[in-house]
């Protein structure tokens, strides 16, 4: 009865309308088998993708923060409602088609952005499948059934003979009485389609076939979604070079995929615009104390102590300051003053070029983005004097405790938790926790619900937080700027 939707039309777009409603997208869930047809404005193209990326980014950071699945569901649900809302068919007051179109287009744009490398494809598929899973679980039961019916999966049930042959095992599996012979709810598929169910021993295996009880069938749907998407992404990656475009779309896609790679902190990683600007060299000391993340604060203190910093620290810290809003003139003043033991001549010869270079004023004139947490964690100093890298990863436990206590007033109770996180290599989570502690917000609140993925995010959120608080204290109406 739902024959006339999604699957069986030849690409004209006319067949999308199902008989029982006038909706272009009859279901809330979508397997994204058909590319969006019709006009897409360039603004929509970018906006829809970015909104979806926020949701996917949140999913990834949930994994990194090791949130329990219940909480992930809630957090992702909230993010979805904010950026890519999708309502059930029963919703009367919203433009269902418009919501679903946004979801549809966003997905396909991200496909284009994330199909290029194996790593990107893998992460995209994982995040998208998780998103689908959240939506599937939250869907209205009846609508979900209709949706599944419309998909016409090629799964076969089991025959009566097969059921009888495996009667004991099937009954043991579902905890039915021994004499039960009704196995109509079981499906028979190749075991490789549901490896996770096999691993948990939730199916009966026989000769390479898995007999899946009715209660576990959602796993099959997710697996189907995942494999369809994997294949489609590979196909897209092969088709991408043949895409005819007028130089507006490729840079956009590049931006999107770069954003995802640096832990969804695309606002920081790729944008060259700095926050607010107007930071001057003499403000750095105070800002370091109030707003800098551990890595940058440590390097700042080392700079003050040694009156010098090694090359990689200059690079890492210098780029951080640039994005923080320190203009080139101020940066030169800052570094000149900081390196108080060397002569003007030496500074101009050996350091000035590099500072100008990092601002894109020398050499190939590339405007380098500040390093993300991921990069900082991966690059750790090997030599004795080096102090770049993520201190959560590089510090010995005792040093970490002393440093956190003196810099961020971390109490002994929270210290245990942070050390535990560090031990499990969840460095961002530890850093996020420090933010929470030093700003006096409750555990799990994060940086307005986000976790630290970039030192500049840490600093910007901290400044925003302070601004909001001073406003509040002075009794004004506060409207927090949205991330």
């Amino acid at each position, binding site marked *: 009865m739902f024959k006339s939707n999604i699957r069986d039309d030849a690409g004209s777009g006319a067949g999308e309308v199902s008989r029982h409603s006038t909706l272009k997208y009859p279901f809330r869930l979508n397997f994204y088998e058909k590319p969006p047809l019709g006009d*897409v404005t360039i603004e929509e193209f970018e906006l829809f993708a970015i909104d979806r990326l926020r949701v996917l980014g949140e999913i990834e950071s949930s994994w990194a923060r090791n949130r329990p699945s219940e909480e992930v569901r809630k957090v992702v649900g909230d993010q979805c409602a904010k950026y890519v809302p999708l309502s059930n068919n029963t919703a009367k007051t919203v433009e269902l088609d418009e919501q679903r179109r946004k979801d549809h287009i966003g997905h396909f744009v991200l496909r284009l952005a994330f199909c290029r490398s194996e790593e990107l494809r893998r992460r995209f598929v994982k995040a998208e499948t998780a998103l689908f899973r959240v939506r599937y679980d939250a869907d209205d039961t009846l609508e979900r059934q209709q949706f599944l019916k419309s998909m016409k999966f090629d799964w076969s049930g089991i025959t009566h003979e097969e059921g009888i042959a495996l009667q004991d095992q099937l009954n043991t599996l579902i905890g039915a009485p021994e004499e039960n012979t009704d196995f109509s709810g079981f499906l028979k598929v190749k075991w*490789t389609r549901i490896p996770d169910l096999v*691993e948990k021993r939730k199916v009966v295996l*026989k000769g*390479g076939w898995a007999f899946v009880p009715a209660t576990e069938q959602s796993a099959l749907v997710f697996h189907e979604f995942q494999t369809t998407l994997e294949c489609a992404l590979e196909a897209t990656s092969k088709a991408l070079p043949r895409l*005819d475009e007028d130089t507006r779309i490729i840079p956009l896609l590049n931006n999107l995929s770069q954003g995802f790679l640096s832990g969804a902190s695309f606002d920081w990683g790729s944008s060259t615009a700095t926050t607010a600007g107007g930071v001057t060299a003499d403000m750095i000391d105070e800002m370091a104390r109030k707003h800098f993340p551990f890595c940058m604060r440590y390097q700042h203190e080392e700079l003050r102590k040694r009156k010098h910093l090694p090359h990689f620290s200059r690079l890492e810290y210098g780029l951080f300051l640039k994005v923080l809003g320190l203009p080139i003139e101020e940066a030169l003043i800052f570094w000149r003053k900081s390196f108080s033991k060397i002569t003007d001549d030496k500074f101009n010869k050996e350091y000035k070029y590099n500072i100008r270079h990092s601002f894109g004023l020398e050499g190939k004139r590339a405007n380098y983005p500040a390093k993300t947490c991921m990069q900082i964690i991966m690059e750790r100093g090997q030599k004795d004097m080096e102090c770049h890298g993520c201190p959560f990863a590089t510090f010995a436990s005792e040093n970490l405790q002393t440093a956190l206590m003196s810099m961020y007033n971390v109490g002994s109770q929270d210290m245990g938790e942070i050390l535990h996180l560090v031990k499990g290599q969840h460095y961002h989570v530890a850093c996020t926790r420090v933010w929470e502690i030093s700003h006096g917000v409750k555990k799990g609140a994060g940086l307005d619900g986000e976790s630290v993925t970039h030192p500049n995010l840490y600093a910007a959120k901290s400044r925003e937080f302070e601004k909001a608080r001073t406003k509040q204290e002075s009794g004004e109406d506060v409207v927090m700027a949205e991330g």
Partner: protein
Amino acid sequence: MTIHDDGLSPEAMLAFYQRLYPFKSIFHWLNHEPAPTRLFVNREFAFTLQGDVYLRYNSFANADELKKQICTLNPTRFEIGPVYSARPRDKRTVRPTAFKPLQRELVFDIDMTDYDSVRRCCSEANICSRCWVFIAAAVKVLDRSIRGQFGYNHLLWVYSGRRGIHLWVSDQEAMELNDEERKAVANYLTVVGGGKEKKKKVNVRQGSKPLPPGIGEFINLLQDIFPPLILQDQDCFAGEVGAEELLALLPANAQIEPLRKKWTADPDRSSEEKWDDVRNQVKINGKKTAPGKLLLAAMEDIVLQYTWPRIDAEVSKHRNHLLKAPFCVHPKTGRVCVPVDPTRIDEFDPAEVPTVGQLLREIDEAMMINNEDDAEGTQHLPDWEKTSLKPYVALLDAHNKALMEETRRRKRGDKNTDTSTSKSLSYVVRHRLWPLLRWTIAYEEHVYAQVGDVRTHLVTAEGLLPLLLVSILFVPCFVPSLCFRRYIMH
């Protein structure tokens, strides 16, 4: 003949490779057909040379090239890795993304050291015929599980030369499993776990619910092996220590206090008697009551903990794990890693496996007899046919024959389009080509860019050319796709 006295001198190894190692059989086994294919050419070989020098990413065009290189390098042993998407020897010249492991046998490694907590006869690297019974039990379960539950047929069991056994599964489907699927198999088959500090190492069910079907299938088999091996031979629960070990595995809420009292009073009770006491306690509790059921379940779990195969799961989980090749020589024992017949696993005795020194002596003897008789008939035979290696090579050759027969059958099947291939073709069309093409069309036709009021059409005359090319390329694929779509519409 001084070189034969020390079986492991480099000279003996070289003689072994030159005269005895069955390169041809190994080639057939890895290649699945007579003419070299990607399965062999893109296969990684890793050599361990004298002095622990390790050479990875070697690959060879055929069996002769492999033999030549092995005779030149004279490694103490060599390992077999996966089939890559390019020749491993070209690894440095191809892009890293174009060099990925694609296929490899599904492998399992069972090592006697994992049984140290349950064996009393030996420990660590030592092995005797008594501990081999553990391996035999493991082989029986694993062999049946892989064949019966996973449906694979081409299983090669290989003695690892000292204290363990390897399993190589060469079915096409098994070769193509990805890492996630391998992990699933390994974890599915891992029942005993939890680390050294954990006493109860089997936790596969809740309370006294029945065992999951995949495990429950083997409980009868293992319950037969358990009494002679664990209770009589190894006598695992003897003495106070043994009693404590057993008590720790019984659920505290199953009224086991009488047992503790009884065993403390009589520390000389044998393992068998203690096991009978537990069984009696079940009767006393009543089989249908909750404590009775708990105790029964615990008894099954104990049987599993002592006899279920303890596989080294990490070996099985990744395609690119290297595993020692069959017929290599174990550097410590000098024994050859020979194939083992799983149906006669009980008769296998590791002490009877030929060593290099022994085999070389056998050749010499055969040559001496040969010279005396001057019988022409035996001269053209390969040297291994004259030694006790012969039955083992014959075992591998029989295995290869079945494997190659299946490859032939499959290839023939591919030519005549039977139902399975036409299905996979339609799958390819539906999932790969069709979305690709439609996306291209959709993109070309419908993406307009709006900037202010100016609307620019993206399609230009040059833009249509690649589209035309794509269509021409895919025309053959279109026909079945149309047929298929008609099929799903009705």
